[in-house]
């Protein structure tokens, strides 16, 4: 039987940051990383760039080739963890091997969710999810060999649109089917969705909103047509299902670890069982705004929680203060960034917004008690991070509300004490 000081399941951004977190405090302890994927290191968000032909597979790495050796971490690819024995501090790996750990991190991320659709079958050719490198490689190969005349994407969320962009770069027209009445329903508000939609339409994509796929028709084990709830039929040989992800909690299913939708962790990233930490997309972690747990499957959360979990595995007591959704989207040269609560019920919030169609400039700030809780920037994203800071530090914007929407927004618009506190680091009574 193998033993290790630190065992990490999952080798994506969360796992990688955990390695770094551990090494910041413990240069020696043994680290073992298990991955059920065949690749040493790749960045999930880069798969759409790969699909679009902007970068090679080699370029999807987000850490240098020497990373694992520099970090003295042993990585086992193609080695899914299949069973967790909390009591004995043991993990069973697929080939029957057991590994004993002192501290365990579950960073198994998420997996794409596939809704029940009539006619869907796993063996059908031409139906894809868009979540992993493997997904991207098979999709790219399929397109290469078949050169389909179009592609249907189910789901107009971030991943669906990223897939769309990749395909459009390969000159394949797309039709996007979305259940909601607008695209990017979770990231954008109505105006933001509109701006993106009109922009995408100009780039050869069609939208079917308030609609979904109810039936898949196939021929020779290959998809041929999809039928929508509205009755519309679309001939296609390629369907991408991108309706969202669910925490990948299967490894803890039979354990006593507390799971709701994701694994529940406290602000030190402990699960309900000692010596077992969890972080990243697999978790429901403390929410930034409210006293509850939330699923926020984004990179910044996976990186931050991974790093803190790693540090805490070495015995540190670093607290995770919670984050909020934040996304940076750039589709066909139109950049956009959103933070936090972007589309609230207006009663309890103050909403400031500004739209200039000439230059696709849109900026919106959602305020509660004079603090920013959400923000959208489209067209001009310069200095977006300052809004992030204002949200994170809960700085009152009462004194400079009118400037928040300026294209040239910067620290100069902040009151002097606040500005000096940030810029020079002088202490301030907050």
């Amino acid at each position, binding site marked *: 039987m193998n033993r290790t000081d630190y065992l990490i399941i999952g080798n994506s*951004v969360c796992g990688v*940051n955990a390695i770094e977190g551990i*090494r*910041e*405090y*413990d*240069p020696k302890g043994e680290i073992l990383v298990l991955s059920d994927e065949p690749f040493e290191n790749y*960045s999930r*968000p*880069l798969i759409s*760039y790969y699909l679009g032909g*902007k*970068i090679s597979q080699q*370029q999807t*790495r*987000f*850490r*240098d080739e020497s990373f694992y050796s520099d970090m003295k971490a042993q990585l086992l690819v193609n080695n899914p963890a299949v069973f967790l024995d909390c009591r004995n501090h043991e993990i069973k790996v697929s080939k029957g091997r057991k590994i004993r750990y002192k501290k365990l991190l579950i960073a198994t991320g998420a997996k794409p969710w596939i809704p029940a659709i009539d006619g869907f079958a796993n063996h059908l050719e031409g139906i894809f999810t868009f979540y992993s490198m493997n997904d991207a490689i098979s999709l790219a190969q399929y397109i290469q060999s078949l050169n389909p005349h179009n592609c249907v994407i189910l789901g107009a969320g971030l991943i669906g649109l990223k897939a769309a962009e990749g395909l459009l770069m390969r000159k394949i027209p797309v039709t996007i089917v979305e259940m909601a009445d607008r695209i990017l329903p979770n990231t954008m508000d109505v105006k933001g969705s509109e701006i993106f939609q009109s922009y995408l339409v100009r780039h050869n994509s069609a939208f079917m909103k308030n609609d979904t796929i109810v039936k898949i028709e196939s021929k020779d084990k290959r998809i041929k047509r999809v039928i929508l709830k509205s009755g519309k039929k679309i001939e296609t040989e390629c369907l991408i299902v991108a309706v969202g992800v669910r925490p990948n909690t299967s490894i803890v299913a039979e354990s006593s670890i507390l799971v709701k939708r994701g694994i529940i962790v406290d602000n030190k990233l402990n699960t309900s069982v000692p010596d077992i930490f969890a972080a990243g997309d697999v978790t429901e972690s403390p929410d930034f705004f409210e006293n509850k747990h939330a699923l926020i499957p984004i*990179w*910044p959360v996976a*990186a*931050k929680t991974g*790093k803190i979990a790693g540090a805490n595995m*070495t*015995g*540190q007591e670093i607290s995770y203060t919670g984050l909020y959704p*934040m*996304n*940076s989207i*750039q589709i066909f*040269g139109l*950049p956009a*960034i959103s*933070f936090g609560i972007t589309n609230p019920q207006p009663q309890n919030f103050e909403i400031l917004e500004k739209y200039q169609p000439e230059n696709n400039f849109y900026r919106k700030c959602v305020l509660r008690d004079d603090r920013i809780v959400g923000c959208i920037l489209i067209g001009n*994203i*310069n*200095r*977006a*991070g*300052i809004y*992030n*800071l204002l949200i*994170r530090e809960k700085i009152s914007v009462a004194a400079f509300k009118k400037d928040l929407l300026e294209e040239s927004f*910067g*620290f*100069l618009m902040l009151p002097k004490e606040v*500005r*000096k506190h*940030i*810029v*020079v*680091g002088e202490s301030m009574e907050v």
Partner: protein
Amino acid sequence: MVKNSKRKTINTIIAREEFCIGCRLCEIACITAHSKTKNIIKAFKGEYPLPDSAIVFEEKGHISFALQCRHCDDALCVECCITGAMTKKDGKVIYRKELCVGCWMCVMVCSFGVISPDITASKIKSKCDFCLETGKPACVEICPNEALVLKEDNEQD
């Protein structure tokens, strides 16, 4: 347990607005320091294109200051970079242009707003490298009124 010894004292460039005279020589020095010839006259008279300055200059009325990357301890830009283009090297946050795809995650999280995106090029315009080659940030060296100074960030614990 103590922090890994790799985390040494690092220097941060601090902008003191009460002494910034708005001459913007820091930008000129930054451009020169990152030009091919590193000679102010040759660079400005003969190099095309010139690099962008990595400084974000804010000015309103008589108040002005020049901000540059703080090379944060737990740099969010490094944490959030999806390509590894933003990376920590010897305590400094270094940008490797060739890896960048222009996803703007760094722009989203940098609390100082000092990363300026070049949207058309899908790259960062210019990123402060703390003048690693010389070890002395050119903006600090040239600032005629010591509005830009190096602050020693000692270990907190």
